[in-house]
């Protein structure tokens, strides 16, 4: 036992007890303050702390044709995302993922950089994974911290109708593009957005409305439980019904198989586009995830320009169809009697000029009146008669029919083309480098500097088909309300004379478009062929026409790029189209 007795003093004991009591009261007092007095404040704070809002998605709207045939639908795939701060050894994980999903690691890294949104936010690194691949990743989940997968709807295209030029495609949003978009749609990097065609034009309608799920999370952002109350549901996008008839569309596409060019068919009274084909096209499935940048570059650099939507973004000289513009001026202004005959000897030499302009028919057409000049497309007749017209008036007539303006079709990237005017010529050739008479000789043939899109040409023919009144604006969304272009007021006599000429083009023996004649179906087809010279090789072959069938007016434009003569190449195609339409009329009439 130890020797020294306890000498503890009661005073010291009490001092320590006092310190103890004071300290404990201080602590309890603070707990009281926090838990009783300030309880409300901290309780609401703790509620906010644990709830995270998470976006939820719904499918994008379908795209169907006028008869309800599904052209674009959604197919569920899986996307793989990574949350950067949860990952350990990013390189190694990417390497493993790369071997499972057989995508090169460089591609994964490229995506990771492109779509990176921040350390705590999931970044999409791979798309279009199969269920089998996902299962493989799920099995090795422990090797992949921070890797998640999500169901994700991809576009699935009808294999026969995957016409990129109308439909367009979806593209992943990158960070640079987001600030340019409408904020209220709440776009996030890596989401899909309609990038061309109707997917872009009707992005707002097709896109789902995002929902919000309130999820209880822990401090690492891990999801614990879905709090179902207060969730805002996501709604699917609206379906888009196109004016397209898928059967006619397929048929048109086949007609242009192996050719460059375009075919457009429309209903004149409603402006509905029944078929619109730009050839060559390409398979839309290249946009489903795996497309390497190389394939894409090949498409862009291809000489046949498959990416180009020729219908609205391709520019071509219109050729002889523009003779009608001259004809309208002649009749409307009373500059000459349509019955008057002019002599075509195969060439024309303007007064006081040494240049000679040839007719396409070297031997000449002989005596030609307006009707014959249109039907046989006599150059000399129009060379001579255009001398009676002022350049300004000629241009304003051409512009009335919609050239040099947008057709306002509901597709993106339409261009206006060119009807040159005085300012243009002065700018291009200098004040003395051109003459009104000279340029008119070119323009009356639809040559020279004139450039039009096939869709503008369709609008032109629709104006003629409806005699200038109530020409409906062209549209591709069936549910878009019908609007009308500015009416064109011409005398009835003018229309009769024009119709006579256009009738003969197809139905008279010497008509340039006789190959389109409808003997079997008995349909009266009006039309005009064009053979448009151009610096790129063979002339472009055109046929513009319209016809009545069961009380409905249809119009069509066929253009074969560098195809040759309008009569020889475009007319037979037009003939087949009309034939097909008439034999499928029940189908077409349906809505």
């Amino acid at each position, binding site marked *: 036992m*130890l020797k020294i007795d306890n000498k503890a003093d*009661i005073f010291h004991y009490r001092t*320590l007890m006092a310190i103890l*009591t004071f300290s404990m009261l201080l*602590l309890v007092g603070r*707990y009281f303050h926090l838990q*009783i007095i300030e309880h409300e404040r901290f309780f609401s704070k703790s*509620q906010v*702390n*644990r709830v995270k809002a998470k976006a939820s998605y719904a499918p994008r709207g379908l795209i169907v044709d006028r008869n309800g045939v599904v052209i674009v639908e959604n197919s569920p795939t899986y996307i793989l995302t990574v949350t950067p701060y949860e990952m350990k050894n990013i390189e190694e994980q990417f390497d493993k993922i790369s071997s499972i999903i057989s995508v090169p690691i460089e591609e994964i890294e490229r995506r990771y950089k492109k779509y990176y949104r921040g350390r705590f936010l999931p970044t999409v690194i791979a798309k279009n994974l199969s269920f089998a691949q996902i299962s493989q990743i799920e099995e090795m989940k422990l090797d992949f911290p921070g890797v998640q997968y999500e169901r994700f709807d991809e576009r699935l295209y009808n294999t026969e109708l995957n016409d990129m030029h109308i439909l367009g495609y979806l593209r992943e949003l990158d960070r640079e593009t987001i600030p340019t978009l409408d904020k209220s749609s709440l776009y996030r990097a890596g989401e899909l957005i309609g990038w061309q065609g109707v997917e872009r034009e009707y992005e707002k309608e097709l896109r789902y409305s995002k929902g919000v799920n309130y999820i209880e999370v822990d401090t690492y952002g891990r999801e614990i439980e879905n709090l179902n109350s207060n969730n805002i549901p996501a709604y699917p996008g609206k379906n888009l019904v196109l004016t397209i008839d898928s059967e006619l569309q397929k048929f048109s596409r086949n007609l242009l198989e192996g050719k460059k060019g375009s075919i457009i068919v429309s209903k004149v009274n409603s402006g509905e586009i029944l078929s619109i084909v730009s050839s060559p096209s390409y398979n839309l499935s290249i946009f489903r995830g795996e497309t390497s940048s190389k394939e894409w570059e090949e498409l862009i650099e291809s000489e046949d320009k498959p990416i180009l939507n020729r219908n609205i973004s391709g520019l071509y000289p219109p050729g002889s169809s523009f003779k009608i513009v001259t004809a309208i001026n002649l009749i409307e202004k009373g500059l000459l009697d349509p019955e008057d005959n002019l002599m075509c000897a195969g060439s024309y030499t303007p007064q006081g000029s040494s240049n000679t302009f040839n007719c396409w028919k070297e031997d000449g057409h002989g005596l030609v009146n307006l009707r014959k000049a249109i039907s046989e497309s006599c150059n000399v007749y129009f060379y001579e008669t255009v001398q009676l017209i002022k350049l300004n008036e000629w241009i304003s007539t051409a512009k009335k029919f919609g050239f040099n303006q947008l057709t306002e079709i509901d597709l993106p990237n339409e261009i206006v083309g060119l009807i040159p005017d005085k300012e243009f010529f002065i700018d291009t050739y200098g004040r003395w480098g051109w003459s009104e008479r000279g340029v008119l000789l070119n323009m009356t043939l639809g040559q020279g500097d004139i450039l039009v899109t096939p869709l503008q040409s369709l609008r032109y023919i629709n104006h003629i088909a409806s005699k200038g009144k109530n020409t409906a604006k062209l549209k591709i969304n069936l549910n878009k309300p019908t609007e009308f272009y500015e009416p064109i007021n011409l005398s009835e006599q003018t229309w009769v004379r024009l119709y006579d000429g256009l009738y003969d083009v197809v139905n008279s023996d010497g008509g340039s478009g006789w190959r389109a004649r409808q003997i079997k179906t008995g349909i009266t087809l009006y039309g005009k062929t064009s053979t448009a010279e151009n610096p790129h090789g063979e002339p472009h072959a055109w046929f513009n026409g319209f016809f009545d069938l069961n009380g409905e007016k249809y119009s069509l434009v066929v253009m074969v790029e560098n195809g040759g003569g309008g009569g020889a190449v475009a007319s037979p195609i037009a003939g087949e189209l009309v034939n097909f339409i008439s034999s499928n009329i029940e189908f077409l009439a349906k809505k």
Partner: protein
Amino acid sequence: MIYGSINNDLQKLYLIVTSLLVFGLVTLFSISSDPFSFNSSFSRQIIFILFSLFIFFLLKAVDIKAIHDNSITIYLISIFVCFIPFFMPPVENTSRWIDLGLFYIQPAEYLKCATVIAIAKYLSNNQLAVKDMSTVIVPVLIASLSAFIVLNQPDLGTSVIILVPVLPMLLWAGVNNFTIFLMIIPFITIIAASNDLAFNIWAFLMFVMFMLFQGKLLNRILLYFANIFAGLLFPFFWNNFLNGYQRQRFLDFLNPDLDPMGSSYHIIQSITAIGSGGLFGKGWGQGTQTQLKFLPVQESDFILSVIAEEFGFLGISLIMFLFFMLIKTLLDIAFRCSDYFSSLVIVGLTSILFSHIFINSAMTIGLMPVKGLPTPFVSAGGSFMLLCFVILSLVSNFSKN
């Protein structure tokens, strides 16, 4: 109460400790996602307690006289062991732990006991003139040496804890009040030095107090100016001798809203958890801050916040009452036990437990900087649980005298 029997006190002590252990286990059960797996803090805590109990009985068999006679050796060995981590690969960038393969031990925990025993040994010497001011020098040196080594590990919290027992032990030993006063005021001076106005007021108060005490006038004036000087030197010390993280913790403590995702993130989450608990708490296993892991290190440093959130003010009051009774019972035992050395050791060990309790609680409610100190008998953690049982064992052993 003071005149009851030691045996009753010991039984009371065991009862209180058992209650605290049960409370701790119930809480750990609530925060473990899979309590019965071997890795959960709940099962580990049970294993630690069983192991600590084994050590408890082992130490009880040790002759107290052997501890008394070898107290300096024990102290020196402990100091030596504290140096070992400096020569081992750092764990989490510090040299606090010794890796024993199965688990880590933190030698600084046992240095706390060894320091108390060494100081007690010195103060219980019969020949010592305790009233003499020079008495304080050796205990302060013993504690400072320990604290200095631990501070360099670096472990600010533990080194503060090592210094704490000196004052109560000196008080218990009967060192005169003026000396203790002199030992406390420099710290107040330093804290006051952070604000000019506070420093001026404190300088005036200190002047009045110095005048009231007896002793040579010159000494008092010199001591007064020494204090003022210490206060003026503090900013220099602050900038040159404290680590970045130590300064940061102190600053966070002063203003927790400054850096919500840094170390004050802990304090904010802790206060939110406590405050949201209310009077009755959210219920066992129902604390959202806790269960959703907003609350950091909840099984050890912030276990009181868990209790406050899930069991409310009533639960935390019960815990605080148990802590109060624990310390009071220990002081009773110290007061009543028959020999001086034992009495001093128990007071020293009690103040270690008390400082853990106080600093930990004060930390969870934002009254003190985040220190990383666990709460006795409640927090999960093997090393500290073992220390608590070692203290308990020493107390029950020494109280036999």
